[in-house]
């Protein structure tokens, strides 16, 4: 098959349509086979631009291959397969269809050769991910979905403004490295960063993802933010602003996850935290750093989806999503518990897991760039990740106290999906060469040395000690934490209310004056024109009275004389 015009994304799009049309086993077959065909197609795309189409005097490049693009598309396709396996039995057909179209958008962005194609797929992701959020089906999901859609469509507009600016400025719609130097490049950067959940709008992620269904959040966790990371690697490698933004995201994710009570919201904040690592790496911008960002994105999608899957099984089986209501589930959910712990160890970059072999590349890049503070912050953040996701998540869900809940373990398909991803976490941790061989730049990096393993063990194990020592301080409360979304969920409402009040009081004053004016005119009218509908002539106004004929004749005579006088003058 030729992939000149035919992006592998189309396979998933067709599958999304088929999911709507067919039922039963046929639908299951589509859900499971389409991602495998997509994966095959992704590896058929050769390097370089495959074709150019002239459209409105622009050279559109629908498909462009490179190792970096293929690697992101590969993990997206794997994610769709395992996510489909996880969800095909309990997810509604429209959720699966939306998730597949959403993934098609993500894979389309991977192979987009120009900014216009990228923008189209970008918007497709925004639309279908909103549908996935709405599939949560609760009033909360509906409201969160609307906020999510507004945020992403706004991000799309900002991105589009930037793209137009670049096209007008340079005449080129090529995807090529740039720096945020002028208005239009800043707009592109901001548009992408909105999707990466960068400050000050990080709140959309923790607002929307936990409102979706247990299966929907697995898909949501994978695509939007990681596509943004890919776009940053392609467009803004070495943009120094990103280091600061990324470090903020890393710390923000940890602090807010520590405050959180909702299980999936903890994981959502840790998505921001992990994407922060990748954003820092793109900001450093060396080959080592970009390799690190790519590898970390690859590993992150696997373990984050694994964590969302294990949380999803718990929510599916118990119907509860608050740390306070859960606990002690390890007794009856061994598979979910073990897979959750493996995911938690991987996200904390424990040695022998995929997190260790990929995240340490980013730290190494900071060392190579002699960025002491960045390195120290990333190291502290690694400890913090173990604290908020590595221990907090499994502890509060599976251990903690006996909540009295005795749910069944995961259904076979969900269990299998988790086991696949858990094995991948360990496989990439033990044999990192498999992933290193696929990275965009040649890798000359040894993840394992005794000294480094020892250092990380000290760091992580003592973070664990800190967790249990400080446990009294981490007592969960039935609360939510205010985030920047307060500004658009509350402050904006207040501002609107104040404006409304101003307008209504102005309207009131105008109304009063109008009534006064009306009364005044009424009095005048009554005086001169008389009361309507009265038969008594004495009560009528001056002009409405009936006058004797003689008076009229006198007036006419007077007027005529004046006229004659004027005529002769």
């Amino acid at each position, binding site marked *: 098959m030729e992939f000149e015009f035919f992006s592998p994304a189309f396979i998933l799009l067709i599958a999304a349509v088929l999911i709507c049309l067919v039922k039963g086993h046929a639908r299951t077959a589509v859900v499971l086979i389409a991602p495998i065909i997509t994966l095959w197609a992704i590896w058929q795309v050769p390097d370089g631009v495959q074709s150019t189409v002239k459209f409105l005097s622009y050279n559109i490049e629908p498909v462009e291959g490179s190792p970096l693009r293929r690697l992101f598309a590969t993990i997206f396709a794997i994610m769709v397969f395992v996510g489909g396996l996880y969800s095909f039995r309990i997810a509604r057909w429209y959720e699966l269809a939306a998730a597949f179209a959403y993934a098609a958008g993500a894979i389309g962005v991977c192979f987009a050769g120009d900014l216009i194609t990228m923008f189209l797929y970008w918007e497709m992701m925004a639309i279908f991910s909103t549908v996935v959020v709405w599939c949560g089906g609760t009033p909360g999901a509906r409201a969160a979905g609307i906020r999510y859609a507004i945020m992403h469509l706004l991000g799309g507009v900002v991105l589009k403004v930037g793209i137009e600016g670049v096209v007008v400025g340079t005449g080129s719609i090529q995807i090529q490295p740039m720096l945020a130097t002028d208005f239009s490049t800043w707009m592109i950067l901001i548009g992408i960063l909105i999707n990466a959940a960068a400050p000050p709008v990080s709140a959309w992620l923790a607002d929307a993802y936990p409102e979706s269904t247990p299966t929907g959040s697995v898909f949501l966790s994978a695509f939007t933010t990681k596509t943004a990371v890919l776009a940053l690697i392609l467009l803004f490698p070495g943009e120094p602003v990103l280091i600061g933004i990324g470090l903020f995201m890393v*710390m923000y994710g*940890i*602090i*807010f996850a*520590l*405050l959180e009570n909702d299980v999936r919201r903890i994981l959502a904040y840790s998505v921001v935290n992990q994407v922060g690592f990748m954003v820092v790496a793109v900001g450093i911008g060396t080959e080592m750093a970009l390799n690190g960002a790519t590898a970390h994105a690859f590993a992150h999608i696997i373990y984050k989806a694994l964590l969302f899957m294990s949380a999803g099984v718990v929510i599916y089986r118990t119907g509860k999503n608050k740390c306070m209501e859960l606990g*002690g589930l*390890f*007794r009856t959910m061994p598979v979910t518990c073990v897979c959750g712990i493996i995911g938690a160890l991987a996200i904390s970059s424990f040695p022998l897991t995929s997190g260790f072999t990929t995240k340490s590349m980013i730290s190494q890049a900071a*060392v190579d760039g002699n960025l*002491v503070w960045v*390195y120290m912050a990333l*190291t*502290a953040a690694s*400890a*913090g990740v173990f*604290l908020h996701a590595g221990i907090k998540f499994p502890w509060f869900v599976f251990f903690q106290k*006996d909540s009295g809940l005795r749910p069944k373990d995961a259904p076979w398909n969900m269990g299998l999906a988790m086991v696949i991803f858990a094995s991948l976490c360990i496989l990439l941790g033990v044999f990192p060469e498999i992933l290193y061989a696929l990275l965009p730049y040649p890798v000359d990096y040894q993840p394992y*040395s*005794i*000294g*480094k393993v*020892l*250092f*990380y*063990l*000290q*760091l*992580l*194990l*003592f*973070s*664990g*000690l*800190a*967790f249990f020592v*400080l446990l009294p*301080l*981490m007592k969960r*409360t*039935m*609360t*939510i*934490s*205010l*985030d920047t979304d307060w500004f658009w*969920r*509350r402050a904006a*409402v207040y501002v609107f209310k104040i404006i409304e009040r101003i307008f209504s009081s102005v309207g009131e004053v105008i109304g009063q004056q109008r009534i006064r004016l009306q009364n005044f005119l009424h009095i005048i009218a009554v005086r001169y024109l008389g009361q309507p509908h009265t038969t008594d002539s004495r009560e009528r106004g001056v002009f409405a009275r009936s006058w004797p004929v003689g008076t009229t004749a006198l007036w006419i005579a007077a007027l005529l004389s004046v006229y004659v006088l004027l005529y002769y003058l």
Partner: protein
Amino acid sequence: MNDEKQLHWLVRPSTIRNLWIGSSIVLALVVLAQTVFYVKGYFGFDAWFGFGAIYGFVSCLVMVLVAKLLGLVLKRPVDYYDEPQDEQNLNSSHDKLKESNNGV
């Protein structure tokens, strides 16, 4: 003892005590191992004895305390954002009260 038997083996007080002892030993070993194995520091100070352990513990302590302090400012009841609906309910119940008063 009978009580303890009924618990899952993992949550028996004796197991938990053993886990604490075991993990303390592991923690001590991980630090002491630095006397045998050389930890290559990148910036000098990170090769100090037990640096990873102290840095990990202290940064977690700081993060938890910062989170705790922020929590004092930022934490709100779960239904914080649902309030507009509550206001409506409040108003309607208020109206009902008025109505019933009028009725009386």
